[in-house]
């Protein structure tokens, strides 16, 4: 296993507490979405509830629980013999299929998916009702039209998306791979989709890997291959993978026919991209296989001429395919609220229908004697000679039918088109968010990503932001800052300027100059110490310290050409940015790692090239929280170098050391972490020959064992890592991302509470809190870090008492907490650590914590495990109505991202899992500000208005129908033609609301960014609430009264026919609702003009077309009535009378009770001129001065 390296990964470091924190609060996990559970259950993983959103540690744990690979549960692959592969399991070909539908299954499956929406069932039921001859209100075609239209639009959209997937599948499946032909022993070209499990493939440099393969041989004599996994997990660093020496020696191919090839036993396919377990039998020998021996589909081969491997997982079973799951489906809060109003509308609908049905019954009762002879009723049918009732079966049945018919007639009270409009509007909003140049991240070349399409408007109502620290607030680009060696602090590099002599080493090998790609500011004193005083104790320790940094890692140095042919750069590739920073630091101080093979490394020590044999490497794991290497130096001494977290390291130091040195080191460590630096402690021990041999045999045993290998290796490591000399400690700066303090300040002003949840130490967390302006000196810090439930309770009670005390000083703390301003009151910050959270979450103390936390302005949680992050999010989610947003970049944030109402992934340095689990993804933390304050605000405002408007628009129409029904003996006749009824919500009035929903802006971007407080209107639900709904509905009733009764009274006792009056009504209502929209539009673009006025024109054209069909009773009516003056007077009167209350109330309210948004709009419009003039004056002034 030499050189077999997973390294200290940063996530693991952050999650190091996790195991000790059991029992974990598993809150956020089980009640999460169904989709994840169902997705997970597909993959054959033994514990489906677990799998999907696991952090790396968790998956590791899962993998380790499976270490014992049972034969019955393993896949057997015969190398080079696809036919002979495990007969028990059918393995798929390597073709992939991301498309959902085939041409045959499209119709049924798509319909099935669409009808999972409850509202569609409602509309379908109505269509079916209408087909009954007794109830046929509309013609068959007309009644089915709206539903068919909505289904068709969605189906076309789905079909287009699926066609694109088909196309990309086809391209992917037809790529060429070279596959070993067992007969000829040559590699022949085959299509990807034809590759089968067991076949041997050859992949050349820069090619994509067609399926998951176990490496057999590489072009590198030591069996190393480098792959880039950016498509898989987003990490851009090259990863090293190894072919086993056993197969390396004789790769299958030209001179080695495959008949002697071996057998691989491996796990069943699963979605854990960081785990693989298997073994290979070659020539009777069993070789174990781990994650470092497999290369996965989706990766690219880099810096390696070729590799040969055997396919073990193909097609849909590859890890990348198992991991590709669609965006999770969430439902926006506005939509949830909307459902409440939909229920209210249903109640109104039922009330209207009941009124109609009851009145119908009363009318029939009063006229029961007349019905026989009344010409318009004709109860009896004499046509066939015999006397029977015509279409009449008693009052009760008639009432029942009247009820059902009125449901059919008034159905659009529940706006069917709203659902499709909302989808289109969100699509448009997403388009603009993705295209926004302000959300484009230059450094990672990534645009904003909208992964979830149905919660755009939630972005405008966020109250709590839960942020990860590393990689989210900070850049996750590590820079070595200070070293403490034997308790002496060397942080001169931190303060000195960059050019302190040519301290960083440039190595001249022959004529070539080798230079590390990045240099670190060095401490001059330390440099001097290293150069001159190699013989003092301090100098010796310093050398050993940097030697440890140079060799105790898994960094792969790559020599890279530059434009200058004489100069070459050394680029350190590794999975952990901390290790890279340490290696660059060592290089700057003269300990340059130049070459790594699987057996040895070459280090240039202050100008001398030295070879160190790497005898063993103990990977980082979260139990030990350290890693170690055993190297044999040029002087044949065998040294153990260890680096790890401070608390894990101080537990294994030599007993009889200088305690003052340890204390000094600890003091330095404390100082570093208060500066916000990440610290590591480095130690070493010289192994005696005997010790080494003991270790070696144990190590070999452990390494070749098939059962519980991980555990055994860990035991071996713990056994040898003891009695260390502490060499020193390092401090690495994790730089803040650009604009983070400003972003946090903006959000604070916007009334958004930012909570930071990090795996870092308390000191580090607090110092980062200060540097990003989250914490200020003026704040009172409440720190809770306890080891028992009892002390937690006490601390919490103290905290409650404290905020009560402050509450006395400032009269209304909760009000303050709600408005989120902290100008005059004493602001508090809560700092709590993961261990305390174990005692608090899921116990009675949770309520207390909630009280304290919401009273505080800032909450910092440190040392928290991934699931605790989710637990904190659900603490807020379950207790308040406030919207939560979680933002993070690593696998450890996945659970939090999925628990929060809105999850945002940072597509940065760490893997892509956060992005895969998120609803939105972007490049930088600071983009949160434009995203929430600008796009969120717009989206919320637009969507809220659109929903209300749709309700209003359909209600006006339904009420008009209702008023007319009162004058038809309650028999559900509609004056408006059935086609117009049907087209009303999908053609006559649909487009303007969509255009406004996509384009309208109440405020400019500049204003919204300048006054973050404007965001609070969304938090206060100002744009969509029951009061607004009620007002809108009252307006709708008034407008329907005006629309109906003005023509009714004007045409009372006249010769007007039903079609003409119907045409007047439909035109009046369409113009009225469009004008209503027009008065509410904030910004008129040319597109808005086209949509609003175009829609009125389209309506007129439609009405004219309908009236040109001679088979309809209304033939020519529109021309007749448009020729009369009364028509135009009615139309004008309806519009003015209808708009009068809306317009007056709007004008009055905007003037007397202006909302913040209204004032900001006025500033937008009027103050800009002032600002411009002021600028001119300023310019003049400065010119005068010049």
């Amino acid at each position: 296993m030499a050189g077999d390296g997973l390294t200290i990964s940063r996530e693991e470091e952050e999650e190091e507490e996790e195991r000790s924190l059991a029992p974990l609060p598993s809150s956020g996990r089980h009640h999460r979405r169904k989709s994840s559970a169902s997705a997970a259950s597909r993959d054959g993983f033994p514990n489906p509830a677990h799998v999907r959103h696991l952090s790396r540690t968790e998956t590791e744990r899962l993998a380790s629980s499976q270490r014992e690979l049972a034969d019955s549960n393993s896949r057997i692959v015969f190398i080079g013999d696809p036919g002979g592969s495990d007969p028990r399991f059918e393995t798929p070909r390597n073709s992939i299929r991301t498309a959902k539908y085939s041409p045959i299954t499209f119709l049924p499956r798509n319909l099935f998916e669409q009808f999972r929406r409850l509202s569609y069932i409602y509309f379908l039921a109505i269509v079916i009702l209408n087909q009954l001859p007794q109830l046929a209100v509309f013609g068959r075609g007309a009644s089915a039209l709206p539903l068919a239209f909505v289904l068709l639009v969605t189906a076309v959209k789905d079909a287009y998306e699926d066609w694109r997937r088909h196309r990309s599948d086809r391209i992917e499946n037809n790529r060429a791979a070279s596959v070993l032909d067992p007969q000829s022993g040559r590699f022949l070209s085959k299509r990807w989709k034809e590759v089968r499990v067991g076949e041997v493939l050859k992949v050349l440099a820069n090619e994509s890997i067609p399926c998951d393969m176990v490496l057999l041989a590489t072009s590198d004599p030591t069996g190393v291959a480098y792959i880039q996994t950016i498509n898989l997990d987003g990490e851009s660093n090259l990863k090293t993978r190894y072919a086993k020496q056993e197969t390396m020696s004789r790769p299958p191919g030209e001179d080695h026919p495959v008949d002697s090839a071996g057998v691989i036993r491996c796990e069943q396919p699963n979605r854990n991209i960081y785990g693989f377990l298997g073994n290979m039998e070659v020539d009777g020998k069993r070789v174990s296989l781990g994650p470092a021996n497999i290369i996965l589909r989706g990766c690219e081969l880099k810096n390696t001429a070729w590799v040969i491997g055997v396919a073990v997982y193909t097609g849909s079973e590859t890890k990348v395919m198992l991991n590709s799951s669609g965006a999770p489906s969430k439902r926006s809060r506005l939509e949830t609220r909307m459902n409440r109003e939909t229920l209210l509308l249903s109640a109104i609908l039922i009330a209207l229908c009941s009124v109609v049905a009851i009145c119908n019954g009363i009318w029939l009762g009063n006229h029961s004697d007349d019905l026989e002879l009344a010409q318009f009723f004709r109860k009896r049918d004499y046509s066939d000679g015999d006397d029977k009732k015509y279409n009449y079966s008693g009052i009760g049945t008639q009432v029942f039918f009247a009820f059902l018919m009125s449901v059919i007639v008034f159905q659009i009270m529940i706006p069917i088109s709203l659902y499709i409009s909302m989808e289109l509007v969100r699509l448009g909003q997403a388009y603009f968010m993705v295209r926004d140049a302000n959300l484009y991240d230059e450094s990672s070349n990534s645009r904003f990503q909208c992964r979830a399409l149905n919660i755009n408007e939630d972005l405008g109502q966020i109250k709590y932001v839960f942020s990860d620290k590393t990689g989210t607030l900070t850049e996750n680009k590590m820079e070595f800052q200070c070293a403490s060696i034997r308790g002496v602090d060397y942080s001169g590099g931190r303060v000195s300027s960059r050019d302190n002599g040519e301290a960083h080493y440039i190595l001249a090998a022959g004529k070539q100059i080798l230079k590390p790609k990045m240099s670190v500011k060095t401490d001059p004193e330390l440099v001097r110490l290293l150069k001159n005083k190699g013989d003092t104790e301090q100098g010796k320790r310093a050398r050993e310290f940097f030697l440890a940094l140079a060799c105790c890692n898994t960094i792969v140095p790559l020599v890279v050409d530059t434009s200058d042919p004489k100069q070459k750069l050394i680029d350190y590739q590794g999975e952990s940015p901390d290790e890279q920073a340490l290696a660059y630091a060592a290089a700057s101080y003269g300990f340059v790692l130049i070459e790594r093979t699987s057996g040895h490394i070459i280090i240039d020590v202050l100008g001398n090239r030295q070879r160190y044999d790497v005898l063993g490497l103990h990977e980082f794991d979260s139990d030990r929280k350290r890693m170690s290497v055993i190297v044999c130096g040029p002087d044949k001494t065998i040294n153990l170098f260890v680096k790890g977290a401070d608390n894990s390291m101080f537990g294994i130091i030599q007993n009889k050391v200088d305690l003052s040195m340890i204390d000094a080191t600890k003091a330095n460590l404390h100082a570093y972490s208060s500066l916000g630096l990440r610290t590591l402690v480095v130690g070493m021990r010289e192994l005696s020959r005997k010790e080494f041999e003991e270790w070696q045999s144990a190590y070999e045993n452990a390494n070749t064992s098939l059962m519980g290998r991980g555990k055994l290796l860990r035991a071996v490591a713990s056994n040898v890592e003891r009695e260390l000399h502490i060499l020193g400690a390092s401090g690495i700066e994790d730089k803040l991302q650009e604009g983070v303090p400003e972003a946090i300040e903006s959000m604070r002003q916007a009334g958004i509470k930012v909570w930071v949840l990090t795996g870092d130490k308390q000191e580090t967390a607090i110092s980062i809190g200060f540097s990003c302006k989250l914490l200020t000196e003026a704040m009172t810090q409440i720190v809770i870090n306890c080891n028992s439930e009892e002390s937690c309770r006490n601390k919490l009670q103290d905290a409650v008492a404290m905020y009560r005390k402050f509450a006395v000083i400032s009269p209304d703390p909760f009000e303050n907490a709600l408005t989120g301003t902290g100008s005059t009151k004493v602001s508090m910050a809560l700092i709590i650590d993961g261990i305390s959270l174990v005692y608090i979450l899921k116990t009675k103390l949770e309520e207390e914590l909630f009280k304290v936390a919401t009273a505080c302005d800032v909450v910092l949680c440190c040392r928290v495990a991934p699931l605790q992050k989710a637990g904190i999010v659900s603490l807020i989610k379950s207790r308040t109505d406030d919207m939560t947003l979680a933002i993070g970049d690593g696998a450890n944030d996945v659970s939090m991202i999925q628990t929060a109402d809105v999850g945002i992934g940072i597509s940065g340095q760490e893997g892509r899992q956060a992005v895969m689990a998120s609803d939105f993804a972007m490049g930088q933390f600071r983009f949160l500000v434009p995203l929430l304050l600008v796009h969120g605000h717009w989206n919320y405002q637009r969507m809220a208005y659109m929903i209300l408007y749709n309700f209003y628009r359909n209600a006006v129409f339904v009420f008009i129908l209702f008023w007319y029904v009162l004058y038809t003996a309650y028999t559900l006749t509609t004056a408006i033609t059935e086609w117009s009824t049907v087209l009303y919500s999908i053609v006559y009035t649909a487009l303007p609301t969509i255009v406004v929903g996509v384009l309208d802006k109440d405020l400019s971007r500049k204003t919204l960014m300048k006054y973050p407080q404007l965001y609070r209107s969304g938090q206060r639900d100002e744009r969509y609430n029951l009061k607004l709904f009620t007002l809108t509905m009252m307006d709708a009733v008034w407008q329907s009264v005006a629309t109906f009764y003005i023509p009714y009274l004007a045409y009372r006792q006249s010769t007007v026919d039903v079609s003409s009056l119907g045409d007047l009504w439909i035109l009046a209502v369409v113009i009225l609702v469009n004008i209503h929209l027009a008065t509410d539009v904030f910004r008129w673009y040319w597109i808005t003009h086209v949509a609003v006025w175009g829609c009125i024109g389209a309506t007129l054209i439609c009405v004219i077309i309908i009236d040109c069909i001679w088979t309809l009773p209304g033939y020519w009516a529109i021309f007749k009535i448009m020729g009369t003056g009364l028509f135009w007077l009615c139309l004008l009167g309806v519009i003015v009378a209808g708009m009068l209350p809306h317009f007056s109330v709007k004008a009055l309210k905007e003037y007397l009770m202006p909302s913040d948004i209204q004032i900001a709009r006025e500033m937008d419009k009027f103050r800009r001129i002032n600002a411009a003039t002021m600028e001119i004056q300023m310019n003049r002034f400065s010119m005068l001065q010049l």
Partner: protein
Amino acid sequence: MNNSAAGTSSGSGDVSAPRRNSNRPKYSRFTQQELPACKPILTPRWVISVFTLIGVIFIPIGIAALRASTNVVEIVKRYDADCIPGNNTKAYKVAYIQDKNIDKTCNITLRVPKDMDPPIYVYYQLDNFYQNHRRYVKSRNDAQLKDRGKANDTSGCDPEDASNGSPIVPCGLIAWSLFNDTYNFSIGNQNLTVNKRGISWKSDRDHKFGNDVFPRNFQNGTLIGGASLDENTPLSQQEDLIVWMRTAALPTFRKSYGKIEQNLRENDTITVTIKNNYNTYSFSGKKKLVLSTSSWLGGKNDFIGITYLTIGGLCFFLAIAFTGVYLVKPRKLGDPSYLSWNRNPSGR
């Protein structure tokens, strides 16, 4: 070690890895949502101007409409009760009207209140007759009316689709219930001619009712609903039917009966001889005879004029009210000191 650096390094290390294209969104005013736009704000000036403008437009229209309506001379005479002699029970009336053997001629007199200039429109008005009743309004077949070949197409005409086994033309309840009272007007001994041509829509005559479709098997059923039709006149010339088949929007409606094309002087007494055939007694419907001149607004209806005057007046009032509000409570538009977080800093 940032991403792009890693990208370059591996790129230059390889033979020819193309540099990744930039994903930067292309700038356009559209995608950045910065299209030029008009941002209307309801400033006091705007609000007051809008209200004043509406007032200025609506009040003259209202006055004109009201004048037009007052200039219309209208004579309305209800005759359904007067034309039944004696006893007033409903059963009696229904029996009376259904009895074919009684001569239902009845004379009423009308006094002309004012000079009436031709054309004077003659209407009959029915009250409580639900021509928009669902059962009724659907009971017709437009194809049959237009096309001679579709005589057998009586779908939708229930229950008046066929009689004695053969289809009815025109079928359906609407045609069946054709109004059949007739009026003869005379002043003194001089007959007033009523022109019954051109009372229906030309579009109906030309395109909706076929000129080669003749009534067939009409009013042959057990129950007679109304008028019979001349089997030798094509439907396109049966104007009473065409008028009747334009179903009315409301339960109280008028239908054109004809036009009187001569002057009527004030205080002229017109004698109308009515054949009171149509049965509205069964459902307590009223029958009225209406003579009316017309204006540019149609018949006599003060409503639209009053509405316009009301709206106009209200708008003037609102204009004044808003002016008052603006004067009493002046507010500088766009003054940041009105922002909620600036307004009451002491409140927190």
